[in-house]
């Protein structure tokens, strides 16, 4: 069968199980769009190529599959850069397809020519230029293998226009992936494994650090069995949230810069840390010199390059989390850690008193209230996609996730503007799930044009803007570390209700606590997209906070009486 490169691309994507492509057309990718029109693939027209990459990313994170984004050459391709880097830092499998100028003029500064493989080399797991129709199918298949295997990541395939247009004989079976052979490493020897077992069975104060890799590995069951076998308390990274039910008494909550105080203190007191699929990000460890000094460390991690990168460990079990955990669990003998767990519960100490939920209602609407009510109303069952900032941290603290892949957020790059497009991607991945986009007034304004995509695609996504009138997280740093000099953080926003209405989206503004639950209920009942503008306390801060570079136990705690008067009271 003779097909053009463009047709082969569509055929290959279809055979690889792709249903939706998030993209934006232009001259250098037009042959592909023409072929798309004749295929069964659904193309989702975005409003900015950054949105396409975040949608593909959100799709991948919600589904566990691969998301596909498409753009034209030049500016289309460069607009993808932020989304690609976002996917790279969080190990998300995204395949980006870009059009490129014809191979005959490559390197000549042709119209809309840009060296996108050069630009994205450090932010992709792999990238490649295709200049012949014959190579299209094999390359796409390879891209899918690479994106998803080992430690996942984004792959960019740049296809020249002549490769899209040329016709060639196409046979699926003839274009199998042909990746370079790799050495099989003997990842860890028996002695190392035995040492891990010994540490596990002699620890008195163990804490498991659960990360994103558990989700990636599909190790949810294996992880739970491991935890049950040893009765280990579990602390989660931001991206590990959901890998173990929040309602389980062994789940302590999030660790790190904005982790719960008792979680960080437990880590500092532990005599054994078992890190699973997490990479000891600096937001997790604080000052490395004082990090968990009393603890031996076991690191279960698929990427050898992560071993001893930030934290020096005693035992490294390099491999797929699921396989390693399944091997370990039968060897666990010691499981009575009740005294230790009791102690951790005591560490919670005055945290409950300091919790904003326990404060008397003074008429102020706090973001934490909004998130907590959202959690209660959705019974923790929704997929929540957050942006970056204070609201992101409050979501992590007050929305209790019980299932994997229900919190989708940009952790490593911290990309503002992520939530709305990623939420759209998540909705495509899980059309039957309730998807809530929780986003700051700042981040929302970065990619709000994707509201039009929601309308065009007739999606039902719920959007909660946590509107504090500030670039809140930066304002918080200015409050703590720059003597409240709020330079460039007060933020004027449009009237979001009017804005939403202009897009044809139903919308409401909520200013008091009493309205929150009814507002959420009404939004959930509506069979369409609803945007709620929650006007929350402007100068609230996220507590606890480990200042950048400080020791994990040196947390700034919520003041005992935080209800200081704010400008609006005066």
């Amino acid at each position: 069968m003779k097909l053009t490169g463009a047709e082969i691309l569509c055929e290959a994507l279809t055979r690889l199980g792709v249903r939706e492509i998030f993209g934006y057309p232009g001259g250098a990718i037009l042959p592909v769009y023409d072929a798309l029109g004749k295929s069964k693939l659904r193309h989702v027209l975005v409003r900015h190529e950054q949105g396409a990459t975040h949608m593909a990313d959100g799709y991948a994170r919600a589904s566990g599959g691969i998301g596909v984004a498409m753009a034209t050459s030049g500016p289309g391709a460069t607009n993808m850069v932020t989304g690609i880097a976002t996917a790279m830092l969080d190990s998300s499998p995204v395949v980006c397809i870009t059009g490129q100028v014809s191979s005959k003029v490559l390197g000549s500064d042709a119209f809309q020519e840009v060296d996108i493989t050069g630009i994205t080399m450090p932010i992709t797991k792999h990238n490649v230029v295709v200049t012949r129709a014959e190579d299209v199918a094999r390359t796409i298949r390879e891209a899918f293998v690479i994106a998803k295997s080992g430690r996942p990541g984004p792959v960019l395939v740049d296809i020249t226009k002549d490769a899209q247009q040329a016709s060639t004989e196409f046979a699926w079976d003839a274009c199998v992936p042909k990746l370079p052979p790799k050495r099989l490493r003997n990842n860890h020897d028996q002695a190392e494994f035995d040492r891990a077992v010994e540490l596990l069975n002699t620890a008195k104060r163990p804490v498991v650090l659960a990360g994103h890799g558990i989700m990636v590995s599909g190790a949810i069951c294996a992880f739970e069995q491991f935890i049950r076998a040893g009765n280990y308390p579990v602390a989660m990274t931001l991206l590990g949230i959901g890998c173990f039910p929040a309602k389980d008494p062994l789940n302590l909550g999030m660790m790190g810069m904005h982790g719960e105080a008792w979680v960080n203190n437990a880590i500092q007191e532990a005599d054994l840390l078992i890190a699973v699929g997490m990479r000891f990000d600096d937001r997790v460890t604080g000052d490395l010199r004082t990090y968990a000094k009393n603890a031996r460390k076991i690191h279960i991690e698929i990427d050898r390059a992560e071993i001893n990168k930030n934290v020096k460990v005693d035992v490294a079990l390099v491999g797929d989390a699921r396989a390693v955990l399944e091997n370990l669990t039968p060897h666990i003998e010691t499981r009575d850690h009740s005294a230790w767990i009791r102690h951790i519960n005591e560490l919670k100490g005055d945290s409950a008193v300091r919790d904003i939920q326990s404060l008397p209602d003074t008429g102020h609407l706090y973001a934490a209230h909004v998130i907590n009510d959202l959690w209660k109303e959705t019974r923790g069952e929704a997929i929540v996609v957050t942006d970056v900032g204070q609201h992101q941290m409050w979501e992590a603290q007050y929305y209790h996730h019980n299932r994997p892949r229900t919190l989708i957020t940009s952790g490593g790059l911290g990309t503002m503007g992520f939530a709305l497009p990623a939420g759209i991607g998540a909705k495509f991945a899980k059309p039957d799930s309730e998807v809530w986009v929780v986003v700051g007034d700042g981040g929302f304004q970065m990619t709000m044009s994707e509201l039009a995509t929601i309308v065009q695609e007739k999606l039902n996504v719920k959007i909660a803007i946590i509107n504090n009138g500030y670039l809140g997280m930066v304002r918080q740093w200015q409050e703590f570390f720059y003597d409240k000099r709020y330079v460039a953080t007060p933020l004027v926003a449009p009237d979001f209700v009017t804005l939403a209405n202009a897009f044809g989206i139903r919308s409401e503004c909520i200013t008091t606590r009493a309205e929150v639950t009814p507002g959420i209920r009404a939004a959930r009942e509506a069979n369409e997209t609803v945007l709620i503008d929650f006007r929350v306390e402007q100068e609230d801060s996220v507590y606890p906070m480990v200042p950048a570079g400080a020791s994990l136990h040196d947390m700034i705690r919520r003041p005992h009486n935080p209800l200081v008067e704010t400008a609006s009271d005066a």
Partner: protein
Amino acid sequence: MQTLVAYVENKPGVLNRVASLARRLAINIDSLTVGPTENEEIARMTIVAHTDERGAHRLEASLEKLVDVLLAENISTRALLERDLALIKVAADQQNRPHLMELIKVFRARVVDVAPESLIIEVSGTVDKIDGLLEVLRPFGVLEMARTGRIAMTRGGDLLQPPLADGERTALETAGSSAK
């Protein structure tokens, strides 16, 4: 200084990926040499990097994550044979020529080009040896120099061969655990 050997796909752009990776990891490369192997599809690199053991581990493991890198190995602590090759053009007149020739002999170097005012000397060996020769040549006037950078090989039965083409492709897919 750490010495790594890598087998890579012999195709355009791979050198760029390797160099770009080292730059991203903020690891300074002292020398990087590439040459063909018995298998024309595979090239061999020797990378000498200004870093410590930890940096070398990171570089080695990160290199192996590149799709086009078949194998990367830090061989710094193993018994090694290291060679560097230099072509050195020195000023030489009738008077000092005999003196020069003597030095060249001591260093087991060779004269490969003779001109009225200069000589080209070819020397190979360890970096120290070449640096030593350079030092004694400097007073004569070193006009030009080209050095290859180091190549290295582990001694004896300690083999470092590229993985077979057909065998273990699945390593990329699994990187699974080997215990039990």
